[in-house]
């Protein structure tokens, strides 16, 4: 028994670390940080039977989860609604609307073109407003362009928006005024090129955090987001364009909704326990509302495609659906950040399965190969 050995060592004064005062001074100084507690005593020998009853040690019910007084492990985002969910929603709307606008221009759907382009620049701009409004120091917004960081989706997004809003604006202006059609066309192409990026980068933005429900959903989140964006853009088209021009909008909304619902479902399933935040609490309520609204919107839009009113109502429902999805994702993420179990349990499971997160494969030499672990994880 190590106890007794330790005690015995101490007693004999042999083999113990120690210093002696001698006539010549102090011998063998050891710093205080080398102190060890609980090695020099033993529990009283002869046993303390009444204190040591074996076999009664209860277990914490959920043995895989302990925490520090139920305090969250990560700090919850300080982002607030409506700024940030609005930013996510409007970005998606803008990006997809730019595509719709370009297509409408190409296929000669003037009303759809105009409303999509105006909607795109307005949404893009408001998205920016939401972002800036949420800053702790809004007057320092320009610092976003101080640096270009590929590692920061927000940086990438800021540069994107900085490029996108002027071209989307130019495209819209040309479409509305009919002036400078060639420049307008070029701007339209540019906006349509940047649009998909604007619609999708926000998925990377929220996934590139330690918020379990966001980060762990990074594989599906971009598809959820572009799907949601497409639904919104389609909805905008349905709401604003005459029935004759809404075909592509309806189709886009249909595709968007299908994509969104399918990938969302897949994401929730894959997330397992963490995915429950998407069906619980405030986040879950928004997500359910989004699903209902988008399904209702799409079904209504298809069935009522001849009715201007029905189309408009369904378009509005789709916009609301897209917004609700973003609000839902936003709040679900907050919920997952607030409860330590969403952080601890998956990590603990990883460890228990002997698959800790590592960077060991960085022995690879090429930069591209640095992605290997996540690829492997995906497989």
């Amino acid at each position, binding site marked *: 028994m190590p106890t007794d050995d330790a005690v015995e060592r*101490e*007693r004999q*004064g042999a083999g*113990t*670390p*120690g*210093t*002696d*005062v*001698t*006539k010549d*001074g*102090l011998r*063998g100084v*050891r*710093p*205080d*940080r*080398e*102190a*060890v*507690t*609980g*090695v*020099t*005593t*033993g529990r*009283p*020998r*002869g*046993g*303390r039977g009444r204190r040591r009853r074996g076999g009664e040690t209860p277990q914490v019910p959920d043995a895989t989860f302990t925490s520090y007084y139920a305090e969250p492990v990560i700090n919850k985002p300080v982002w607030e609604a409506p700024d940030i969910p609005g930013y996510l929603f409007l970005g998606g709307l803008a990006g997809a609307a730019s595509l719709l606008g370009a297509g409408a221009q190409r296929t000669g759907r003037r009303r759809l073109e105009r409303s999509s382009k105006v909607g795109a620049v307005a949404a893009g701009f408001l998205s920016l407003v939401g972002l800036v409004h949420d800053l702790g120091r809004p007057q320092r917004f320009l610092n976003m362009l101080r640096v270009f960081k590929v590692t920061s989706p927000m940086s990438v997004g800021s540069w994107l928006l900085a490029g996108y809003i002027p071209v989307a604006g130019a495209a819209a202006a040309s479409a509305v005024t009919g002036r400078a059609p060639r420049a307008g066309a070029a701007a339209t192409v540019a906006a349509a090129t940047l649009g998909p990026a604007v619609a999708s980068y926000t998925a990377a933005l929220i996934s590139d955090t330690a918020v379990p429900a966001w980060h762990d959903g990074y594989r599906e989140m971009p598809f959820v987001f572009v799907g949601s964006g497409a639904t919104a853009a389609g909805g905008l088209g349905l709401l604003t364009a005459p029935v004759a021009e809404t075909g592509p909008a309806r189709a886009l909304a249909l595709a968007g909704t299908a994509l969104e619902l399918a990938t969302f479902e897949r994401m929730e399933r894959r997330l397992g326990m963490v995915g429950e935040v998407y069906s619980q609490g405030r986040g879950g309520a928004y997500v359910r509302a989004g699903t209902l609204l988008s399904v209702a919107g799409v079904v209504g839009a298809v069935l009522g495609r001849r009715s201007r009113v029905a189309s408009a109502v369904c378009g509005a429902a789709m916009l609301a659906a897209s917004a609700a999805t973003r609000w839902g994702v936003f709040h679900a993420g907050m919920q997952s950040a607030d409860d330590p179990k969403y952080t601890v349990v998956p990590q603990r499971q990883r460890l228990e399965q002997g698959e800790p997160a590592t960077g060991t494969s960085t022995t690879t030499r090429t930069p591209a190969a640095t992605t290997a672990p996540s690829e492997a994880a995906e497989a």
Partner: protein
Amino acid sequence: MAECHPVGFQWVMEAKARGATVIHVDPRFTRTSALADLHVPLRAGTDIAFLGGIINYVLANEKDFREYIVAYTNAGTILTDEYRDTEDLDGVFSGLDTEERTYDFHTWQYEGMEVQAASGQRDQEYEDHPGTKKGRASSKSVRQSGRGEAHGSGGAAIAGEPEVDPTLQHPRCVYQVLKRHYARYTPEMVEQICGVPQDTFRQVCELLTDNSGRDRTSAFVYSVGWTQHTVGVQYIRTAAVLQQLLGNIGRPGGGIMALRGHASIQGSTDIPTLFNLLPGYIPMPHAHAHMDLDSFIEGESPRKGYWAEMRAYTVSLLKAWWGPAATPENDFCFDYLPRLTGSHSTYETVMAQLAGNCKGYFVLGENPAVGSANAKMQRMGMANLEWLVVRDFSLIESATWWKDGPEIETGELRTEDIGTEVFFLPAAAHTEKDGSFTNTQRMLQWHHQAVEPAGDARSDLWFAFHLGRRIREKLAGSTDEMDRPLLDLTWDYPTTPLQSHPGDVEPEAEAVLAEINGWDAEGGPLSSYEQLNDDGSTACGCWIYCGVYSDGVNQASRRTPATEQNWVANQWGWAWPANRRVLYNRASADPDGKPWSARKALVWWDEEKALWQGHDIPDFTASKSPHYRPPTDASGAEALAGVDPFVMQADGKSWLFVPAGLTDGPLPTHYEPQESPVPNLLYSQQRNPVRQILSMVHPDDRFQPSGSEPGAEVFPYMMSTYRIAEHHTAGGMSRYQPYLAELAPEMFCEVSPELARERGLEHAGWATIVTARNCIEARVLVTERMTPMTINGRVLHHVGLPYHWGQGGLARGDSANDLAHLSLDPNSHIQEVKVGQCDIRPGRRPRGPARVELVKEYQRRAGITEHTGTEI
């Protein structure tokens, strides 16, 4: 220690790193316990039983360091046959006067010797001393005045040579008396009294004794957990007995270390702002008819040891204070010293305030409205003053009680009715003034002024100096005899102009230090108290500090880095006496002057050089050979032999048995606290029979029934007050600061889960704690660190009460000291706040008059009267 002195605790950790075992004995599991190897919870108030049990173990198993105790202690000294132990008298010693509640110590003496005096209570036997003029002052008043602090420098008066049996076999020798006295402190008894399981207790005994002796030493560390009891001095005495038996005094790694709570609390005892002492532990004179300097010295000082030179110390002090006015003809102005008549401690002062006799009050860097026992009485006392001066950094509770004190809320006081005139003067911080602190190791360290104080803030040096200057100016020309001491006072300190306050000057602290150090007839600085004369040719403000300004150099400001000197670090600051770091370190060598063992060498006799040498400065006459034996007519230091390490003691020995100097017995004996849940299992004597309570009877200070007395069940729980790492004492320096306030923002109490369940206390909720004095509320911290104890077959719970809070500052709450009573240690007059009885109930306390009513209801339920708990 980790709680209250974290930086000091690094040395405990260092010792652990070197293999030391750390045992923490405390009712609570604290930060210290967390790092200790063994935590031993014991019932608060039973330390003497615990330590006494270890003494019994040592004696019964002959684990004592025999050579050490034979040579260096009074183990072999034979006592008079009149002595009766607690064994004979069921818990009291011979000489108890039950009327006066005092002991006559005459029967505690050594065989064949005349009446002797000792350091603690030297004036006790003033009346008996041959050569003193008989007066009529009550010896009771003298005994009650108490001189616990005089232990600070030790000292004892002995006339004649005691009979000694070096074989320790004589039935009346101290060793045998000790053995009989502690024989009943068996492991079984320790378990029943203290709640410490026998196997744990045995382990402590074994660890301690195995680690003591020639090759090893053990140290004891205590704080106010020991002093704040009705038997506080005897707690420390018990440790002293044990450490003597084990040979752990005067040796490296040994000793008993008091961890004191304030930067210069040691200094304020050495240079005492205490009623019963003059600087350097010279007692304040008691009132005796026709007492002059000679009879004072005769009555107070011994023949042998350094205290034999008390006349030189006293005369030099009088010369420092009254300079040219102090002449041999006028007894060096000895008559200028005011005289004591009994105890005038802070608690008597409060009674005097309540009685209307004490009308003016200075509160200087202290917060009695929170920090003193039964703080309500402190506030009520202040409300009865004519004027109050508070000097502090912030508007502490002691300055603001008249507008926001608890009694305003209960309606017991009304601001408009309070006639006290209050002056609040902002104080300067240590960074704004020069001066020295004396730390808990008796080491003076100088702090230099960094900046001048701003606004009206001034140093207390400035305050004292200018107050004295103004008073002297106002009285200038007075012919009234009562003003002579003021007008003759030497008060002409050099000053420095304050740059930021034109016209204002600051006295020079170093000049004051020079006066404390003292000078010779030519005004040259002294370097040692051995140079002091009793003819008025030397002046010295505090003889034990003599040498701190030797060579005209401020030794307290020496700062040779630790890394550039040996491990004793004598070149950092200056420690009294004579810069010695380990007191009585002659005992680190055997009688022949050789270190007891190679690995425990500290000082030793170098035959070749015929000098004491070592790492530390020898606390011994450097050239005195171990083989020196004094001639029979020698006196003073010369009368000490080469084997007498305890140079302040009259016999040069350390005392296992204290024949004189303590008011409450020559040997520590376990008594139950003033308020206890159990009867004393050792004797029928329940409490310390001479504990100090009677002068304190007051309606706001009712005691509770104890043990099996009816009504005791109304207050079923033990309580202790204490400090935590996050705050400083009464909070004046911590609760007002955001960074500390946020660490412990509210008053809380600590209770075990068992107690919480028993009383329905909610974790992180509120509880009300009630005693016969007051009730307070606190947040509840339910923690397994508080453990129930089985005492005498009954499960007992402790309520832990940190006492830092008050109504002021950022971190607020009720003051635990409002619950405490005023039952004091008779030697030191320190209150018993480390153990009491209380009730605890869920929820917040009543507001307004209902708070007072709740306390009264408890008093009624417990049947409390003014006589409760005052039994002898």
